[in-house]
């Protein structure tokens, strides 16, 4: 069971309080009707599925009930950092 630092609660909390919510920083297009079918499919379905550092969203469902972003290594499952919704996308150190 992972231990996740909720950026709102500022505490390490057990994974079962959280709900994984998919890749992060995929904003819903402001004007979906302007998008081609391909662009819309890209928004809906295409995911980076990164092996390595992965931007992802979590919901502290049984906690503060907030969605937040995280950068996590999908090989070691270790979190690099977590940050609040609205904060800039975390840079991946090369």
């Amino acid at each position, binding site marked *: *069971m992972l231990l996740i630092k909720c950026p709102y609660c500022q505490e390490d909390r057990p994974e*079962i309080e959280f709900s994984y919510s998919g890749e992060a920083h995929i904003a819903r297009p402001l004007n979906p009707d302007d998008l081609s079918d391909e662009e819309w499919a890209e928004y809906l379905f295409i995911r980076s599925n990164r092996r390595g550092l992965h931007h992802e969203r979590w919901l502290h469902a049984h906690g503060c009930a907030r969605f937040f972003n995280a950068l*996590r290594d999908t090989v070691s*499952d270790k979190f690099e950092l977590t940050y609040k919704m609205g904060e800039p996308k975390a840079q991946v150190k090369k």
Partner: protein
Amino acid sequence: MKYSALSLLTNAFSGHKKWPLQWPDATPKKSYDVIIVGGGGHGLGAAYYLARKHGITNVAVIEKGWLGGGNTGRNTTIIRSNYLYDESARIYDHAVDLWDGLSQEINYNVMFSKRGVLMLAHSVHDVQSFQRHIHANRLNGVDNNWLSAEEAKAFCPPLNISKDARYPILGAALQQRAGTARHDSVAWGYARAAAALGVDIIQNCAVTGIKRGANGAVEGVETERGFIGAKKIGVSAAGNSSVLMEMAGLRFPLESYPLQALVSEPVKPVMPCVVMSNSVHAYISQSDKGELVIGAGTDQYVSYSQRGALHIIEETLASICEIFPLFKRMRMLRSWGGVVDVTPDRSPILGKTPVPGLFVNCGWGTGGFKATPGAADLLAHTIAKDQPHPINAPYNLERFTGGRLIDEAAAAAVAH
């Protein structure tokens, strides 16, 4: 050397010292007609069918670890084809047709056991959904029958059909022709049969890049052991498919999740068939060695770690003991994790890609093993003919743009 009781006997007299290599470890050639990336059952099978059915023998299978070390060797070996949609029924039933007779075809006993798969219904909604499957299967010529709770118990005596259970069993769908097979043997058997037809099997050789020419078409793969040329590349790499597609500059609708499974200590025969409960998330059979083989759920997050969590195991065993209270005193011997690649509609992608010469077979999620011979055959067909077989044509990448998804799980939506 042909395997048979006779060859076993002959070799016994010579102290088993004369058995030849099942497949030689090949040294990569400069180039091949076709390279298959991924030495699991699907990839090795594709190489075999390329050689056997299409006469293309200048083929290499490139595996980063050892053959069958990915999901082929990590799954719970359930084989069935009682799917709802025509597309699914066709592709999985094609696989079951090939399973039946595979041992004889490749002269390697893969121990396909048609012991029957029972799928349990726990609610009125489940019953409706299963009936829909059964009726559709019947008209598609796919074996699937409804059993009452009592009939289900007669078929599988350890089932608890008490009406007071948390998830009472209202009945079950039985596919008698479904069952299990010995997972490692599938990989080894295909490897041996493919090698006998001239296919090169290259282990411990990770692909690090896919080279594309000026016209965009593939030219070969970069590997830990140097560049290997090929005009056609088939990628059959399960959990690592996204990583390989990215090497060719493609982004795919895939996510990879940890999936665990476990076995109990071996005991004398107690489970005559395979039992699945989708609402309780329990998947169980007993191996020929006596171990209960149990499939667990996926962890919730994307991961390549092949490491699952304890709470998933707890939940899985609670589910098993809910349906089989008899097994509560059994003991877990071993648990392990695999990486499953899942598409948005949980159906595979099997066919051509936007890159000329690059073919893909991925997205089987938790259901890849049962499809092994079918997927292998269809991948080989698609590569050989440069166009999909009618059975795998619907499993294209374009469906995500157009919206013609093949979503079996969506049929299980619960509301009211």
